[in-house]
């Protein structure tokens, strides 16, 4: 009997993304139907074909459900403080420009407590990729209203419905100077994978928003069914509009979702500007900074 089990186990094929994960940390903390795991799958598949040296990839997360992503990835990974993965990543990148730095965090972490850091990193055009899993809510702390919660949606701190205007994240990133801005949902796994790969290849501040279901604390409270129902909603209500004006992609409660690659432009990143500036200023006395 034991031998039989062993045989069966040996015949199970290894999941192709397993080498990207800290399997000794499984099971993970995410709920059934949560979209974060799907995004991690896309991220690892993008990495797989990116041609990047994985020893030179660092992932930085803040706090929250998406904040746990760093801890499950078998890369150099940093689980920092609430709202502060971007400034940590800033130090990491500037201290060693050879590193490919990815910030992977949630909407509350990046845009409420961490909003100030986001706008400045985009303005400076720091060479990093910011992936935001937007589940419209604070999941880990129990479903409180977030700066991304649609108007009229119910949260534990808006029991009578939300009346605050949420952020339009692609518009925010675009207006602050991000060189790459895209939005997908957890349903769009192929598009998302391709988009992450593009963002990783882009020099400068790239941003991807991923809408993802939080069945436990958002869908349930708003009577939107389970994770699968939310995926069906994404499937049926998303419209791909590459190059859409980011002003026009704001989200309403269960509204149509405009997804796609909205911004893909070039402008010199922070360290390029720094080196060019000092070279002009100091001439031969200046050694271009490489870390």
């Amino acid at each position, binding site marked *: 009997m034991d031998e039989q089990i062993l045989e069966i186990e040996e015949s199970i094929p290894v999941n192709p993304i397993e080498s990207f994960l*800290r399997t*000794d*940390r499984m099971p993970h903390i995410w709920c059934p139907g949560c979209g974060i795991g799907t995004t991690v799958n896309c991220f690892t598949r993008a990495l797989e074909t990116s041609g990047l040296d994985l*020893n*030179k990839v*660092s992932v*930085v997360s803040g706090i929250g459900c998406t904040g746990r992503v*760093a*801890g499950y990835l*078998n*890369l*150099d*990974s*940093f*689980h*920092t*403080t609430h709202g*502060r993965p*971007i*400034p*940590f*990543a*800033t*130090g*990491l*990148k*500037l*201290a*060693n420009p*050879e*590193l490919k730095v990815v910030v992977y965090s949630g909407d509350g972490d990046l845009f409420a407590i961490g909003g*100030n*850091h986001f706008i*400045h990193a985009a303005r400076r055009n720091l060479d990093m990729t910011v992936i935001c899993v937007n589940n419209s809510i604070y999941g880990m702390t129990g479903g409180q209203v977030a700066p991304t919660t649609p108007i009229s949606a119910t949260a534990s701190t808006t029991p009578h419905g939300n009346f605050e205007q949420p952020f339009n994240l692609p518009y925010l990133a675009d207006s602050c100077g991000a060189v790459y801005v895209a939005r997908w949902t957890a349903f769009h796994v192929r598009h998302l994978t391709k988009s992450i790969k593009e963002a990783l290849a882009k020099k400068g501040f790239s941003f991807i928003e991923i809408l993802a279901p939080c069945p436990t604390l958002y869908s349930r409270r708003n009577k939107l069914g389970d994770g699968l129902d939310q995926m069906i909603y994404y499937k049926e209500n998303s419209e791909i509009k590459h190059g859409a004006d980011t002003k026009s992609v704001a989200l309403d409660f269960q509204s149509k979702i405009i997804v796609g690659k909205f911004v893909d432009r070039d402008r010199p990143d922070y360290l390029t500007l*720094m080196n060019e500036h*000092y070279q002009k*200023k*100091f001439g031969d*006395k*200046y*050694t271009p*900074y490489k*870390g």
Partner: protein
Amino acid sequence: MKSDPKAVLTGAHFLDGDHACSEGAIAAGCRFVAGYPITPSTEVVERIAERFPLIGGVFIQMEDEIASSIAIQGAVWAGKKAMTVTSGPGFSLMMEHIGLAAMTETPCVFVDVQRAGPSTGLPTQPAQGDMMQARWGSHGDYGIIAISPNSPQECFDLTIKAFNLSEQYRVPVLLMMDECVGHMTERVIIPPAEEIEIFPRRFYDGPKDEYLPFKPDEDLVPKIVKAGDGYRIHITGLTHDEKGYPVMTAAAQEKLIPRLVNKIKFNAEKIIEYKEDNIDDADVVIVSYGITSRVAIPAIEQARKEGIKVGHLRLIVVWPFPEKRITQLAGRVKSFVVPELNQGQIFYEVERNAYGKAPVYLVPHAGGTVHNPKDIYNTILKSLKGK
């Protein structure tokens, strides 16, 4: 390990404390500084911004002190020596990241050029009101080291010491300057680079697959690696095991947190530094630090001229505190007098360690200027009368 001769400005200079601190950081090998402007500390980063481009350093003015205090930690994990600089209001904002540095054992330096608070207080005027905040300001239990210079020369020397101690014990080290010391201009001697001792980062060099990021050496300090070297480290502010993985149990907490406290506590005698004058025959001992240690000197001299045996214990390392020395002295002196530019902070530490064997007198000051030495002198007299 020695300092980099290309970066060290060997020679005699006329510098203020803030600028001397910048030069100390450069001599110590610091090549990443993140800061946010705040009086009276800004001159430190201004000089860094001036000097860094030609010596291979990166200075970035961040959007606030919260960002500055974590950007330096990112830089450390990428292999740099790093520092941030601020004053009271910014120091308050940095507290969470002092906790992060303590928890993740990230060697880095925080400089606080103290001004009078609370809140915005007196932005351009001195105080020593952040001493307890330095020790206890972040939530939870941890150990740190805090150092207090009393001259521009010491701002140079002790900034190097701050970096060295941070590397040796993998803790945030807090350089607790004050506005007077920061803005005071004096002769500063910068020695040749080969005479400046640098404590190298405690990099792991064993077999890669056996590395445990939080497995301590005998002195309770673990070996470090950096991002990009293929170790695939995980660093978290959550309670973690030796592998660095989060473990949400009381047992993991019990294994980690006492070590973070004890690596300073058990090594305290090696870290502690103070300077004593006229202690052997003293009836009264003045315990002071920073600018107040200089303001106390006229009061001590006056008293000694009148035949009162006053000694002086000046704290150079303030945290860890020289508990044993105070207890020892308490057994034989008549009193302690503690002048400080606050309403009583280090005073309580002296009192606690005197165990009631000698009375301790505070000479408080709200800040904004320094003490009148007369107030210290009068307290010396009062302490002998037992009032």
